[in-house]
């Protein structure tokens, strides 16, 4: 069979992710870049890099599916689907028995109820960035730490501090008060992770917590939050090797399914123009 290729691009609030697969669902290339204000305009560059890595040109791609916060602003995409459906599809490809997925990204937190790879229901955090990746970035900056180091630091804790507020601004004050009160850094960080996990657990309980529980998104890279979630949910939490890719992979897989379904029905696939234009977020 002729090999055909599919791309999924997940333009998140913090990170832009691209996955390119073939019709056997083999991942040929993937990339994770900071979205940033400038990179939003340069989603096309990220796509170009991904194509280069896969040794393909844009004309080789049968279908480009966009997802994520910026999904409607990817000019070279053929279709767009929400990150809710894409995460569900992507996560189910890693963990076929997933029943509950939790994704905490830069801007929001989501809970997804999944059965046999299909999204059945979802919950999302409110518009406030409390308890998301952005929250951890702000707190890390307050503490003069790299966000990537928070997880390991928290594992050294012997008695986590109580952080009652999940509001980014108030939590910052609480952290400073704890430190000035002599509470060790690792206990404060562990307390923050517990606050995030507690808030997330309360939210996803509305969907019923049933294993397998899978955790994705940038915050899933933080081992401290993973442990705190396990404690709050009372069950093991699985994390894929690359937790940022589930949305982009899901997008590529859904693009593949759409294409193959159309081909099987003898229909023409509706694709957009194949020129790599700048993403127009703000225009």
């Amino acid at each position, binding site marked *: 069979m002729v090999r055909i290729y599919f791309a999924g691009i997940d333009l998140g609030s913090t990170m832009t992710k691209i996955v390119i697969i073939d019709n056997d669902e083999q991942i040929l290339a993937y990339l994770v870049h900071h979205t940033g204000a400038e990179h939003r305009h340069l989603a096309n560059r990220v796509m170009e890099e991904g194509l280069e890595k896969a040794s393909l040109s844009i004309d080789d791609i049968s279908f480009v599916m966009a997802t994520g916060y910026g999904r409607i602003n990817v000019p070279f995409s053929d279709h767009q689907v*929400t990150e809710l*459906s894409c995460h569900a599809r992507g996560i189910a490809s890693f963990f076929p028995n997933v029943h509950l997925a939790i994704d905490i990204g830069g801007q929001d937190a989501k809970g997804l109820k999944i059965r046999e790879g299909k999204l*059945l*229901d979802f919950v999302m955090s409110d518009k406030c960035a409390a308890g998301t990746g952005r929250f951890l970035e702000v707190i890390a900056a307050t503490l003069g730490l790299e966000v990537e180091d928070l997880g390991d630091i928290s594992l050294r804790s012997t008695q986590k501090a109580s952080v009652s507020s999940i509001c980014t601004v108030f939590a910052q004050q609480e952290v400073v008060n704890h430190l000035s009160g002599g509470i060790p850094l690792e206990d404060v960080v562990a307390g923050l992770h517990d606050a995030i996990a507690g808030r997330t657990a309360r939210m996803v309980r509305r969907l019923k917590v049933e294993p397998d529980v899978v955790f994705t998104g940038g915050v899933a890279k933080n081992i401290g939050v993973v442990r705190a979630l396990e404690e709050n949910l009372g069950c093991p939490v699985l994390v894929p090797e690359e937790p940022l890719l589930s949305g982009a992979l899901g997008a590529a897989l859904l693009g593949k399914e759409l294409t193959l379904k159309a081909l099987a029905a003898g229909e023409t696939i509706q694709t957009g123009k194949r020129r790599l234009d700048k993403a127009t977020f703000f225009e």
Partner: protein
Amino acid sequence: MAEPSKGLLRAQEIYQDRSHRAIELREQGKKIMGYLCIYPVLEMMTALDIVPYRILGDMREPITRADSYMPAVNCPFLRSCLDLGLKGKYSFLDGIVTTHICDVGSSLSGIWNYTVRTPFSHHIDTPHTLHETSLQQEKGLLQDYRKALENFTGQKMTTEKLKEAIRVHNEQRVLVRGLYELKKQDPPLISGVETIQVIKAIQSLPVDEGNELIREVISEVKERSDGPPHKSARLLVWGSILDDTAFMEMIEGLDANVVMDDTCVGSRAYFDDVELTDDPLDGLSRHYLMDIKCPRTFRTRDYNDVRKDYMTDLGVRFSYLRDYARDWKADGVILESVRYCDTHGYDVPSVRDYLDSIGIPSIYLEHDYTEGALAPFRTRVQGFLEIIG
């Protein structure tokens, strides 16, 4: 001189500048009566040739003045209404009629009286339950209201005048239902956005002018070739006030048509007629207390039955939504509420339980009554459509 616009265009014009006609009528000597919510009995205004004019908020106008009188944890719609009043946007009103729609709405009527100071005001303390005694109380309150309006105008509200007013308002109800009939087709002949424009327009006009407008819209829409396109999903929207098209635009900008609603700038005030009883106040009190299905009135199967059964109660309270979904072929329901609207908020779990029990998917969205903050809901609604699609 240019021909006056008609039909949908006229509805859009009134939607965008809704006080224009009321101010014009006031200059011609008419009395304009502001009313809050859909419970002040409009027939009694019409009977004395008073123009009813619904007080609404403006989700595109930041609330800057009302915060001095109402805390930010109060319903933003009602705060917006007061804010517009304080900014003089309702200065053309001769009076205001309020009811006990909810505690905040009731408090607002008092705050309005000593801050906005509209010349005439009357408050109807509408009961919240359907006991027989509640009905007697509502009738008594309407007798007081009748006297208040008679004193205000210096005219007698005769039974004949009141019966004629009921007839014209019932005609409006029939016309609105006729308009909603046109939404049963696929694609619907009129969109959710246009429906809000029409209903908001008729709530800003004297009833006979409103009736004329709906007639024009119906005949225009029946003939149109530029109606809403076919979409994958047909949705029913239930909830608190939507007096701006932004929320509907967000939904209808996706792969869905809003084919039916149960909201108060929508179908809610128009789906039952007032019975023409010998004493018109009997029919009016029954209609306004019992027929209008707003969560502000608590409806259970039987107050005297102590063996409460939740699912049976849900059927009594919400089976009309099943009928709407069936008759308008809705694939799912969007439940929406303005943040801090306890009245609708308390009903949401029950409505969802009922819809779950009859297999109709639903999603609940709580919004801030600001146009700019609607973007995050796009993902939720699109995700919902992907699930039900």
